[in-house]
């Protein structure tokens, strides 16, 4: 008797708690931010989380009368884990947005869940072109790899680079980079003399570099995940390829702002195409970099940080536009065509593909005030993902 009373009381208490919870939930909007905070992609997570927190610190945690609650989860860049976490966030926490996703497979793992639960999936890091096609609820604020590769190819041909060896990490974004670069480069009259793919977890680049050097190209086009670029560039110099007059070109992952200063003076002169440099000359960016460095013990923001920062802006702005309506479809519709000025420059969300449109800058590594920076010197304005444009034409 006494026992059943206790149980009844407990059930009642739980019930009340649940009621209290839902009433509270009406006033809050939860953002489930899934990003690798451990493992090889950790630097991505570190940058993104710092940026997301900075955005909230700058813009407050109330939008359209709703309190924003950020739930950060670490998936270690393991897709199975990402999927499980996303499921928990949707079912238990009833999140309004899912955001983050450090690498392509983790973004793809969540795509079916986003579609089924009608939860917007904001991709703030992963860069393979086809990601946004996998669910009508995916919106991207990071970048698509071909966006940087195609302008790179244009620039290279115009600047006397005719023979190129492509060297890429053998995984989806790498292959994206190789294909989009090669297509544009060959179309403009360039010649790819060798295409080298190396495994993602690769300890020593020396043999691949030797192979590239023996082909005597004007330049090597390189794509590796951020973090590995620095080893690559150092070995490039060690092998004497720079002295042989071979240039490094590629999307900006190789000369990640986060690691650039640790690479040493050998990287000076490297030309890359990318959408963000901490050196980007605009008032918005200067304020962003200063605030970011101040909040993070002098850590310099890289392109991942900007992806996260813009992702937060997109979610805030969408909520404002819907007047606090948390319906997933309404939010995604609100995001389509949205444009604003990001630290990287003017950007917008393509209403057809839900992918980002941004300027791509050609930059050269230079020394400024004793620090290395990617200094922008040419701009390709409002670049849409050429990967998708090419597919449409077919």
């Amino acid at each position, binding site marked *: 008797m006494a026992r059943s009373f206790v149980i009844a009381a407990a059930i009642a208490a739980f019930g009340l708690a649940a009621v209290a919870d839902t009433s509270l939930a009406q006033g809050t909007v939860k953002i489930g931010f899934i990003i690798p905070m451990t493992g090889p992609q950790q630097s991505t997570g570190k940058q993104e989380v710092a940026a997301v927190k900075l955005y909230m610190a700058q813009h407050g945690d109330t939008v359209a009368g709703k309190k924003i609650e950020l739930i950060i989860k670490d998936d270690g860049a393991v897709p199975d884990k990402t999927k499980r976490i996303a499921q928990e966030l949707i079912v238990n926490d009833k999140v309004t947005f899912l955001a983050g996703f450090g690498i392509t497979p983790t973004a793809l793992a969540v795509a079916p869940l986003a579609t089924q639960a009608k939860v917007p999936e904001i991709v703030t890091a992963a860069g393979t072109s086809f990601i946004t096609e996998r669910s009508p609820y995916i919106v991207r604020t990071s970048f698509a790899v071909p966006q940087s590769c195609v302008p790179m190819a244009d620039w290279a041909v115009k600047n006397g680079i005719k023979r190129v060896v492509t060297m890429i990490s053998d995984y989806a974004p790498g292959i994206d980079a190789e294909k989009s670069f090669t297509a544009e480069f060959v179309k403009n009259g360039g010649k790819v003399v060798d295409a080298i*793919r190396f495994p993602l977890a690769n300890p020593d680049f020396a043999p691949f570099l030797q192979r590239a050097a023996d082909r005597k190209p004007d330049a090597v086009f390189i794509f590796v995940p951020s973090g590995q670029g620095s080893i690559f560039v150092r070995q490039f110099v060690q092998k004497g390829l720079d002295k042989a007059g071979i240039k490094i070109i590629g999307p900006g992952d190789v000369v990640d702002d986060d690691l650039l200063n640790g690479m040493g003076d050998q990287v000076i002169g490297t030309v890359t195409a990318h959408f963000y440099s901490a050196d980007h000359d605009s008032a918005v960016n200067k304020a962003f970099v200063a605030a970011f460095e101040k909040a993070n013990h002098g850590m310099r923001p890289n392109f991942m940080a900007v992806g996260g920062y813009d992702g937060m802006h997109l979610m805030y702005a969408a909520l404002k536009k819907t007047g606090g309506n948390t319906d997933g479809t309404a939010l995604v519709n609100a995001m389509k065509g949205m444009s604003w000025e990001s630290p990287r420059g003017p950007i917008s969300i393509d209403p057809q593909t839900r992918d980002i449109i941004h300027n791509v800058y050609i930059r050269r590594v230079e020394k400024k005030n004793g620090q290395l920076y990617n200094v922008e010197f040419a701009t390709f304005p409002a670049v849409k993902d050429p990967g998708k444009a090419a597919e449409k034409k077919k």
Partner: protein
Amino acid sequence: MLTVLFDGISYGMLLFVLAVGLAVTLGLMNFVNLAHGSFAMAGGYITVILVNRIGFPFAVGVVLAFFAAAALGALFERTLYVRVYEKNPLDQVLFTIGLVFMSVAAVDYVMGSSQQFVQIPSALQGQFHVFGIGMGKYRLLIIVICGLITLGLQLALTRTRFGSRLRAAVDDQRVARGLGINVGATFGITFAIGSGLAGLGGALGAEILGLDPIFPLRYMIYFLIVVTVGGGSSIIGPFFASILLGIGDVAGKYYVPTLGAFVIYTIMIVVLIWRPLGLFARAASR
């Protein structure tokens, strides 16, 4: 062509210095120390701190990395490892893999997760060209240092009193104790030297292999391949295994880039089918 061979040898030599400590603990002392890479990482990070932050010369940094890693190894051996020597291999594996994860998290917490680089002096950068072979100066240095270490180890193991004590302690601990050999101290010193060499390898290898908190996990498999292919009962076995794997890996990647990553595993499988105990294994004595 010869450049490929040269790169392969230097890569193999580096693998050898990194893995030789593991060959000793695993092969000679029958202890599965998966945390071996953590000592290598410690050596690398110590060099980074000494050379980049405090401004020690590179050579001093590398030498200190050896001693610091050795001291760390001795400390862990005396306080922790000594308790698991007699346990079964599964316990040893669980214990040491736990240490690996702890070291990864600790380094990440203290030093951050990004790649670190040791600033090597400019005199060591660039290449020599001898008879048309491009030889990286830094890689040449690695070959010289690692070659000397190998020679020194082999002599120490076969010609010195300590070497014979160690071999005796490994062959039969009880008899060795009965003869008045201090088995615990012998193992302790051996372990410390093995860890120190790993630290040295980590310091020298940071330039070629990279250095970040997951270093011990990333290279664990390479160390284990060296020891299994070489057979863990001598120095010569792992040495030839390292060179073979280094050349195989580099040549494979050069000539067949698409398959390059598998070459090292193929070599391992072929060798193990041919000689299940490794290239230079003794017949099992127990």
